[in-house]
């Protein structure tokens, strides 16, 4: 069973449609016990880090996700869901994350050239840094869709792909079986669907 975590942050419509399109059954759930039993976990998220981590903690999903991931259940964090995997975020203050991948979520404006628009929004080609199972059907230079104002920093050795936007921004990460992508695979056309398929298959 693949658990798609619903914790009240963002809209799951597109992700649900994407899994339907690739013929993959997923269980949408906010129940920590279901997450603990899952074969794979998808942690989505849109909005503010503080709200998202707060909701995860309130519901006990934070422990369920970290326990499962540490027990070897493959986990994919998407967009804000990826940012939650790190040690902390500096979005509107300083908030602790799930500590599954070492790194800090920082504002894009600190690294990109002045004058570039924020958020980083649009289609940007992936610059591959390391092999990763989720890139089984994806090549260097394939474009994916980004919408974000914060990025994962200080996680160099875990970066599997980057995107150029006045600086190289972290596009995806992997540490053991914990995966994260800053972009939205569910909004990245056929390339994004291939990535979701690869995560489900491996």
């Amino acid at each position, binding site marked *: 069973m693949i658990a798609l975590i619903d914790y009240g942050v963002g*809209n799951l*419509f*597109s992700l649900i*449609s*994407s899994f*339907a*399109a690739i013929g993959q059954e997923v269980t949408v759930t906010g129940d920590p016990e279901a997450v603990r039993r899952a074969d794979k976990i998808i942690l989505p998220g*849109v*909005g503010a880090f503080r709200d998202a981590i707060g909701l995860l903690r309130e519901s006990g999903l934070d422990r369920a996700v970290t326990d499962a991931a540490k027990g070897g259940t493959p986990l994919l964090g998407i967009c804000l869901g990826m940012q939650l995997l790190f040690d902390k975020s500096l979005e509107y203050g300083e908030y602790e994350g799930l500590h599954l991948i070492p790194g800090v979520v920082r504002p894009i404006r600190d690294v990109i050239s002045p*004058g570039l*628009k*924020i*958020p*980083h*929004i*649009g*289609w*940007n*080609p992936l610059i591959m840094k390391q092999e990763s199972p989720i890139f089984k059907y994806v*090549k260097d230079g*394939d*474009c994916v*869709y980004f*919408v974000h104002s914060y990025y994962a920093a200080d996680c160099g050795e875990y970066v599997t792909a980057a995107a*150029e*936007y006045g600086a190289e921004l972290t596009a995806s990460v992997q540490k053991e079986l914990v995966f994260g992508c800053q972009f939205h695979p*569910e*909004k*990245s*056309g*056929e*390339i*994004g*669907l291939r990535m979701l398929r690869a995560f489900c298959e491996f």
Partner: protein
Amino acid sequence: MITKRIIPCLDVRNGRVVKGVNFEGLNDVASPVELAAYYSANGADELVFYDITASAEGRALFTDILTETAKRVFIPLTVGGGINDVSDFDRVLKCGADKVSVNSGAIRNPKLIGEAAKRYGDQCVVISADVKRVDGVFRVFAKGGRENTGMEGISWIKYCVEEGAGEVVLNSIDTDGVKQGFDLEMLEKVCEVVNVPVIASGGAGKIDDFITLFRTLPKVDAGLAASIFHFGEVKIPDLKQAMRDAGIPARIER
């Protein structure tokens, strides 16, 4: 390097895609669900769905069609038309829209953009402005281009962005439907005053119009058009290849 986006716009009324010339003389093109799925799989970078229905029945039908469409579209989907309050944002976002574009609704209630941006985030709120020259001044028009609001266009757009609009669609009524190229003069004025993505709309007739747009105004992020795509006068894969050949970053799926 971020790519320049190409965005087909689907005007939907009574469950069908229509496209007018200068907003009049509408005629049927195709089923919105089929057309949207086709674009999603054939190189479009984003879709805009515009509800031009007036009645409550039409609105309900639109919402059903939007849901069906969103299930088959795996690129960003923006919805506009009939967005008058925050509950309208909620209604279309639940049907699978990623962004919501406001036009007349923001003119009637200038606080709407701020309220929606706080609730759903700036990236979700698009200000769509229909602007036309009247006695040499850019004026904002409401109600699908029929009513001159008397407001000055550039300062209106600047205000909307300050309120929290994360993107601007600038539709020049002067060039819309004329197919002689985008309104570069108007677009340049908007690019000077905002630092969010600007989407050019109105006037595209051929591939070269997009090349000229992106070459002349590097700050423009996207080009939007309707009939030239729906009628196959410009094929998006050909357009993308021409952009790449001209040194303009474009997304081509392989």
